[in-house]
């Protein structure tokens, strides 16, 4: 164990903040269980990907500066998203001129920014979690986490330690779900083709729960599974690792049998 606990700034992500706070609280629980102290800087909003991927460099730079400021002084910045963590780690430095003070600050932030699950395993050294969830789950590898950050075994390793849980692999787990940020509304027909194939692969596993590490992908897949009439629950992997399923699954009505404060 390190002498002092890691001082972590939680990058909530705009989607978790807006759609699914329970993911944020699950992340806090996991980080605190791993011995970290967690703070949530108030001046954070979004990582800037919508602007970055639309070619709007000016707005991206402005937002990146705000994030760099908001997270000064933390040992680590952790996001429950491979996509937003990838944006900060892999793309922020490229926004600024080499040799500039901004570039140095962006590189410094990038070097201490992590996606949640890989932070727990790589930095906190976690190999197991204290959670019990009785379910047969399948895991979708979101593209940014997988290809920008190399996250593949980490979620599976921690999920294997959840009491009562079985992981079944779907076909083409590494194939994009078709979300792609604004792509899904700019090219709805293509996006639909992709998420429809993904949903078929998920259903074929006969899993009762779908997990992933990025809320955008999860909402896309949940929305499609529900439109197809599937009853598979869709949740962020952090909820299961934290052992907290008190919120109804994404896009699902509260179960009448369970009490809910929703």
């Amino acid at each position, binding site marked *: 164990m390190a002498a002092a606990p890691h001082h972590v700034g939680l990058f909530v992500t705009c989607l978790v903040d*807006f759609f699914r706070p329970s993911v944020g609280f699950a992340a806090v629980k996991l980080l605190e269980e791993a011995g970290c102290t967690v703070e949530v800087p108030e001046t954070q909003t979004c990582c800037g990907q919508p602007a970055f991927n639309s070619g*709007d460099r000016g707005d991206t730079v402005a*937002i990146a500066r705000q994030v760099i400021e908001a997270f000064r002084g933390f040992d680590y910045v952790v996001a429950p998203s491979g996509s937003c963590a990838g944006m900060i780690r892999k793309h922020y430095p490229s926004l600024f001129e080499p040799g500039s003070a901004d570039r140095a600050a962006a590189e410094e932030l990038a070097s201490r920014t992590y996606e949640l699950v890989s932070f727990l395993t790589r930095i906190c050294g976690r190999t197991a979690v204290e959670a019990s969830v009785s379910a047969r789950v399948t895991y979708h590898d979101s593209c940014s986490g997988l290809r920008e950050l190399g996250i593949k075994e980490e979620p599976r390793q921690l999920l294997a330690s959840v009491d009562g849980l079985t992981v079944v692999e779907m076909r083409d787990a590494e*194939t994009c779900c078709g979300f792609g940020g604004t792509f899904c509304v700019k090219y709805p027909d293509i996006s639909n*083709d992709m998420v429809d194939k993904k949903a078929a692969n998920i259903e074929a596993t006969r899993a009762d729960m779908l997990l992933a590490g990025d809320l955008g992908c999860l909402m896309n897949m*949940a*929305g499609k599974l529900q*439109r197809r009439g599937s009853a598979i629950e869709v949740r962020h992997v952090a909820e299961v690792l934290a052992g907290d399923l008190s919120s109804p699954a994404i896009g*699902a009505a509260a179960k009448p049998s369970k009490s809910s404060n929703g």
Partner: protein
Amino acid sequence: MQPTSHAFKENVARAFNDANLQQALKKVPTGFVEKRALARERLPEFDALRDEGIAIKRHTLTNLDLYLEAYERKVQESGGHVHWAPTAADARQIIVDICKRRGARLVTKGKSMVSEEIGLNAALEAEGIRPVETDLGEYLIQLRGETPSHIIAPAIHLTKQQVEADFRRVHTELPPERVISEPPELVAEARAMLRQKYLDADIGITGANFLIAETGSSVIVTNEGNGDLTQSLPKVHIVITSIEKVVPTLEDVSTILRVLARSATGQEFSSYTTFSTGPRRPEDPDGPEEYHVVLLDNGRSAMLGTNFEDMLRCIRCGACLNHCPVYQAVGGHAYGWVYSGPMGAVLTPSLVGIDEAAPLPNASTFCGRCEEVCPMRIPLPKMMRHWREREFERHLTPSTVRQGLSLWAWLAARPGLYRKVTGLAARSLRLLAGRKRRLRHLPLASGWTRYRDFPAPEGKTFHELWKERRHG
């Protein structure tokens, strides 16, 4: 070839309504993706070879002028001719002139995407010269008056039933009762139809996968052997290719060939790898009397030293098309020009202009699979983003998107106000969704709700709840 890349959306709609295309596209994941994965697995040094290949290409592009001049000298020494074609029109003219000088009536052709790029067949036909495509895929699309839908499998958009129907329509001299329902029968029929053409042709035209500066050779890789017959039987062989195909040495070609077929079709090597160096020498048993190489620029040299230089490393294996979920959904014709998939989304704007090709770099989720499988590790998503930046700078991005973005960015830069607006919006959507907690229709988000339900927010935002729970 006239691009229709600007009409990408319409092309996509047509692709989804084409049942034959959708049926044909099912071949892509099993035919290419799985085979490449196996080929890679069987060669432990695959990734090391990729890096060697990249170093070769980088070095060559940095010294492109020197290697092209060295190549030209070697071709001349071997008795061949090199023609420099700055534009597609120049290339067409050079080839038409050679054909006219030789009095050519019939020209056989191996597969060449550069030939498609410059629209060579139409230019030959306009001069009364008949081009006959000898690659099976190219033969099929020529029969149909179509353009290639894949850079290595030009007719991948067709089902075998369509091919049978085309053959029955065109090969009217053959007995109508013949059985040609399966690929081997179709291939045999095409071969029989082409055999005499090889012998009758006045000129053979091929592309080139590589040019070798050290020897002045051009290299083609094929699986049908049609390229060999095309280039060695007629009296004149014309190679039409582009300037970035040159590499320094034979050894360099050997290195890159080891990743080319594996990336393309999952083969260790293509069935035929053919090196051509100059015309027939006195002691050679066969070969052409004249050997010409037409080197096309057409916008490529302008990519050197820019954000798009890495694209010139491309060895045209097609792996990025095969692995792209967008390509797998809509096929190559939707991209509206010769080059499709991720490599087309980057290269087409460079060659035909971003105004014409504006939609292509946007038609990607940035899933990154193309870059992952590219043997030359070309950062395709990054370059698509560079194109999006050019579009944004030049106000080619739709104004509704621009306005939405700037409003959102303005708000994101004001965290206090952002919290109030998002808090209100989250609660409103939660109320709107009611107990089902999801919406089947949502104004302004019909692109989403046409195909999926829209999950409602939980209610309060994380920041609101965090304040309540942690700070009372």
